[in-house]
């Protein structure tokens, strides 16, 4: 089915009544109807977290948070773009943590609110990737950073969980902290280290005119 011969649906996006084919995303529908849209548009593949929208579907009271590039328009849908920035108020540099035994203490210094979780589920229900955000925060608080980080594999840092948290925990940044310390302190791949050592000793030089890089020799 092409966009032209589909049954159109009626949606309201940022207060604008729009008719669009149901095969289009919220952003595509806005463009399709001829409205400009620059802010809150990013990768258009659901991994950059730019296009956060509030969505209410026909007949439902609940307002959900979703991604505008991933949400297809439906009859009677109401959509509002959330373009405000919400940077985290936490600040840390991995280099400040001198010892891997100190990570848990440093975590609580950097994220003092993380222990104040009320288990309201606000973060979880806001997450467009269905990450168990609340559990992630709990695990990080217990110092189980590797486990916590695993929960945030698909996190796109859209910050919607921050918006949903009444205690200002910034759960996505907690998740990313958990992931970063895991790599920073525990990833020591021996194949990489061995290669770096050989390079350091000058045993792996590159010949810019190598036989393998000549057109005549390289033919399969």
């Amino acid at each position: 089915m092409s966009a032209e011969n589909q049954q159109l649906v009626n949606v309201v996006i940022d207060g604008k009544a729009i008719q669009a084919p149901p095969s289009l995303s919220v952003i595509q529908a806005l463009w399709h109807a001829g409205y400009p849209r620059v802010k809150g548009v990013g990768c258009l593949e659901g991994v950059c977290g730019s296009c956060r929208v509030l969505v209410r579907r026909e007949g439902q009271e609940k307002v959900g948070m979703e991604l505008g590039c991933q949400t297809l328009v439906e009859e009677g849908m109401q959509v509002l773009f959330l373009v405000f920035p919400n940077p985290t108020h936490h600040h840390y540099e991995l280099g400040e943590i001198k010892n891997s035994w100190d990570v848990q203490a440093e975590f609580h210094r950097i994220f003092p609110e993380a222990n104040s979780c009320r288990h309201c589920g606000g973060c979880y229900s806001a997450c467009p990737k269905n990450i168990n955000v609340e559990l992630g925060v709990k695990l990080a608080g217990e110092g189980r950073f590797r486990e916590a980080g695993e929960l945030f594999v698909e996190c796109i840092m859209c910050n919607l969980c921050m918006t949903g948290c009444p205690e200002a925990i910034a759960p996505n940044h907690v998740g990313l902290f958990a992931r970063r310390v895991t790599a920073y302190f525990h990833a020591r791949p021996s194949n990489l280290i061995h290669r770096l050592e050989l390079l350091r000793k000058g045993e792996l030089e590159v010949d810019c005119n190598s036989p393998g890089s000549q057109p005549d020799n390289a033919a399969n």
Partner: protein
Amino acid sequence: MTVSNGTPYSEALSAYQASAARPLKPAGDDTQTLLEQYHPDYRADTLDTIKVGPNSGDRCHRQLAELLQADARIDEADLAGAPVVKTDVLVIGGGGAGCAAALVARQAGAEVILATKLRLGDSNTVMAEGGIQASIEKSDTPQMHFDDTLKAGHFNAERELVAAMVKDGPDVIRWLIQQGMQFDLDEFGDLLTRRAGGTSANRVCYYRDYTGLEMMRVLREAVQNSDIDVWDYSPAVELLANESGHCAGAVLSNLKNCSYVQVVAKTVIIATGGIGRMHLNGFPTSNHFGATGDGLILAYRLGAKLRELDSFQYHPTGLAWPQHLAGSLITEGVRSAGTWLLNGHGERFIDELLPRDVVAAAILRECAEGRGITIEDGVCGVWLDTPGLELRNPGILQQRFPKLLNLGKKAGIDPSRSPLLIYPTLHYQNGGVVIDANGATTVPGLYCVGEASGGIHGKNRIMGNALLEIISFGRRAGEHAAAQRHNKGHKQVGLEHLSRLRRELTISGMPMERKSPMLFPDCAKFDDDADYDGLRRHRRNKVTQE
């Protein structure tokens, strides 16, 4: 593709059956003939010769040539009242290359402003799935990495740049781990690697099929937790030059309060990424919303030389169907894990791990010669045989390609049961601004890194070299640019180079109506957006819309 004589989708789907073994059809044409007949770069009707600027006489894709030879969006009058901010290093672009350059420049002690058109991290980096190349396996050497890169690029790459990059490879991975980036490791904690098409060893390090996402969120967090001054929604609309014609900063358009700001800097690093949203030859693209080639235009106007302006990468496996996802990328990792490509007759028609340009050309050939699979509106493609992969390696999709499964969910297709219809998608700009091993362009004070730069990939790029390049050259440029902060300041800073540009455009009889850089794709109607009056006011010959 406007070809109707293929196998209809529903017919092909009901005839399809996952199979454990399929022989490869013997190749009919040699690769050079295949490329010349079917690769979009070789279509003579889309090429133009440049008339104005440092690349005069060179062949260039017509759509890009139009923007390179268009008028500027601003002139001296627009700078009256525009505040001046001073810094050591101005980085333009907030993807992986820009972040790496900014982090290293700041680490070296320079004051850094990072300006980005959208938000920090909104980039092609975040979408990269396949991985990052670094020769770390016993069976591999930097020399083999060098040879593979040269060969895949049809020997057009700059050897000195490639050598620098492949030697950086392992240290780039270490640097990323030190920023807090995770990679997939084996039971002993060693880095896992996989093989890229057109290469001779397992060399691609990865994190699931989220390598770019993992890299970008870590780099973004590192930048935000540093003293780098990040300006989002601030596209550069023009570079500034000093009395000697050296780069001296840039004019940024602040989309939040609709005004121009002049950032005067000792050095400028362009890291603006690619051109997919120009939709060359009408192809769909896998690129980010902001990939409109702005950096090429800005650098060219200041006199920087460009290269390989007629060479672009069409990634073989873009999703062709459904329509709302057309152009979305399916990582080469899926093919390197052993997935086959099948035509409308269920035949394998090309070695799936040949270089990307060859595989893309082969897909275009199948479609053009009636062996594709067609669906309405002339949409044509071939199968990506994911069920066959799953049959031979049960559980592999769930384990290694979660992003592909998500794409399937959005498309309403289960890739473990049904093959996906794919067609080449405009993916990467192989050429770009000429640089040296420090990322410096031919204009003093101006650096260029990442996809916007040229010379590293020749005329075709292999998987995983893009993520390596952005960090390798991002770090190199950041360090070198930071070291220039002790130079004495510019005496006079302005837009003198635009007078020269306009004179040359007029002499060459170029139309002056078109403005560049493009900044945003046409569909977003940026120049008509009432939210952004700042730029609209300065647009010449604009048809007023109420």
